[in-house]
């Protein structure tokens, strides 16, 4: 998903979930920050690099694809953008390695989603915003995995856009080109995607790169052959999926705010219904960027002007704070939430016997070990325990 949904739609969803104006801003800021918090960004703040929630294009191009590099990539992308739906799924064929990769396929309403939302409970707007980003992406990025894998993430020329609705649906072949700088041409069905690389672990085979930005366009409806689906066609209906994502975000944030336990496959359609026509209209509008439409909708919902996303909004507070106090700043709390999410997802993947996301050490059994950045997590847990 893009800024239009992660920032503006999350803001609207937070409002409908009953959050205050300030909370809505913070949650939506953090939901969008997940797409900006790269190692480059963290290095500029002197922040722990393990808190990275994304990798920029050029970072990816330079990323090493040895064992450690792949584990690092998988940790980031599976934890924040391609949350696995079912870590115990059985493809019915292939060896262990293939099965582990298949189990990383993203999809909505998995057990990990429940864990993600519950992890955010009582941990502030930063954790909520981060969880909402993860939740939204489970809808948009389904059928792809957050690990470089040709056999899971590849696509071929059997890729068709479905234009129109109902009886007047027209099928048009999607044409891909490998020019990341040129904008997608919606009129002529020309989209950018990553180059085909036969190497299993190539960065080009990470996530939905082979499908370009199509999963991130709320208006797009298309059908294609996922590499793992044995020639069965998948029809992706983004307007419907994004609608579900929005309703589920409202439900999730309401649960977190009221203390109600979060359950998968539940949606707050009752709260969203008064705005359904407006939301579906924005979702279905064929345009590269729906930020303006979402912003206007958000301003109508709340009656307050909504500022555009400003990456630098909380940076000065972080930089001005003493090193020992940084974890208590706005960004500090976001970084700790990111570490917690990454730690949780890595642990779940590790427990299935897969080393794709690396090694996870159970703190309660073996104490602290491994990457020092995660000491921040230990301190937070200790503080929470002390507080209780």
């Amino acid at each position, binding site marked *: 998903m893009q800024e239009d949904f992660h920032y503006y739609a999350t803001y609207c969803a937070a409002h409908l979930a009953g959050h205050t104006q300030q909370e809505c801003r913070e949650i939506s800021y953090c939901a969008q920050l997940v797409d900006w918090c790269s190692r480059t960004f963290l290095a500029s703040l002197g922040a722990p690099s393990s808190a990275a929630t994304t990798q920029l294009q050029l970072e990816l191009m330079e990323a090493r694809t040895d064992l450690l590099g792949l584990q690092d990539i998988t940790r980031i992308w599976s934890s924040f953008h391609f949350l696995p739906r079912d870590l115990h799924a059985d*493809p019915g064929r292939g060896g262990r390695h293939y099965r582990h990769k298949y189990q990383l396929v993203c999809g909505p309403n998995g057990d990990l989603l429940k864990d993600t939302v519950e992890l955010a409970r009582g941990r502030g707007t930063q954790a909520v915003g981060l969880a909402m980003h993860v939740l939204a992406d489970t809808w948009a990025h389904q059928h792809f995995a957050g690990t470089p894998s040709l056999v899971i993430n590849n696509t071929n020329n059997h890729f068709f856009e479905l234009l129109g609705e109902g009886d007047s649906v027209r099928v048009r072949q999607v044409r891909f080109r490998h020019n990341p700088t040129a904008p997608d041409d919606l009129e002529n069905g020309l989209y950018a995607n990553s180059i085909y690389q*036969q190497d299993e672990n190539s960065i080009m085979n990470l996530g939905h790169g082979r499908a370009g930005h199509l999963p991130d366009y709320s208006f797009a409806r298309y059908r294609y052959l996922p590499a793992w689906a044995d020639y069965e066609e998948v029809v992706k209906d983004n307007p419907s999926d994004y609608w579900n994502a929005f309703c589920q975000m409202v439900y999730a944030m309401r649960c977190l705010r009221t203390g109600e336990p979060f359950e998968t496959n539940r949606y707050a359609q009752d709260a969203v219904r008064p705005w359904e026509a407006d939301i579906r209209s924005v979702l279905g509008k064929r345009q590269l960027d729906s930020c303006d439409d979402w912003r206007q909708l958000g301003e109508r919902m709340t009656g307050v002007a909504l500022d555009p996303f400003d990456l630098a909004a909380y940076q000065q507070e972080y930089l001005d704070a003493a090193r020992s106090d940084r974890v208590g700043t706005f960004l500090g709390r976001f970084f700790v939430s990111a570490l917690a999410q990454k730690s949780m997802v890595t642990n779940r993947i590790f427990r299935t016997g897969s080393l794709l996301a690396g090694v996870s050490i159970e703190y309660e059994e073996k104490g602290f070990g491994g990457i020092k950045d995660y000491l921040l997590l230990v301190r937070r847990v200790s503080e929470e325990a002390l507080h209780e």
Partner: protein
Amino acid sequence: MSKAQRVKEVLLGLLSIAGAALMTLVPDLGYALVALIMCVSLILGGIEKIGYYLTMGRYMVGGRSIFYFGILLLDMGILAGSLSTTPQSLIMIYLLGCHLLDGVVQVMRAREQRGFEAPWKLTLAQGIANILVAVACILFMGSMNTVVYIYCAGLVYSACLRIASAFRKTAIVYIQ
């Protein structure tokens, strides 16, 4: 990374550096070794592709193309090994391409880091160094020794990275 893996990485790194040193000291032998390494790489690459197809690729839509590609690579490697002389220009083009691509990516990354006011000078320096190596490949295309020296430089660089990664802390802690 397990202890055994770390030891293996360090040993491979040291072996690569030793190999690079030997090839630099005896360039004629070095060129033959580079040609041999290319031949063996192609053969192993072909076998790897075929193995990949058998374990994973055959479950993928369009996976059979991997098998055919593997067979082609294998045959290319066998032919390269059977040739009386390996064209020097082919090896040079391969090295030139690798260094140029690396260099350009690093320079672009340095620009991006500068935009974020993050440390960028080291990345820029590495990028420029790689581009200069690519230029050297073009300028000294006719020199057999240059092929060897450039190959050895790449070997030493990747060996250092391999050794450094063996000492990186990798595990992450999970807390309930």
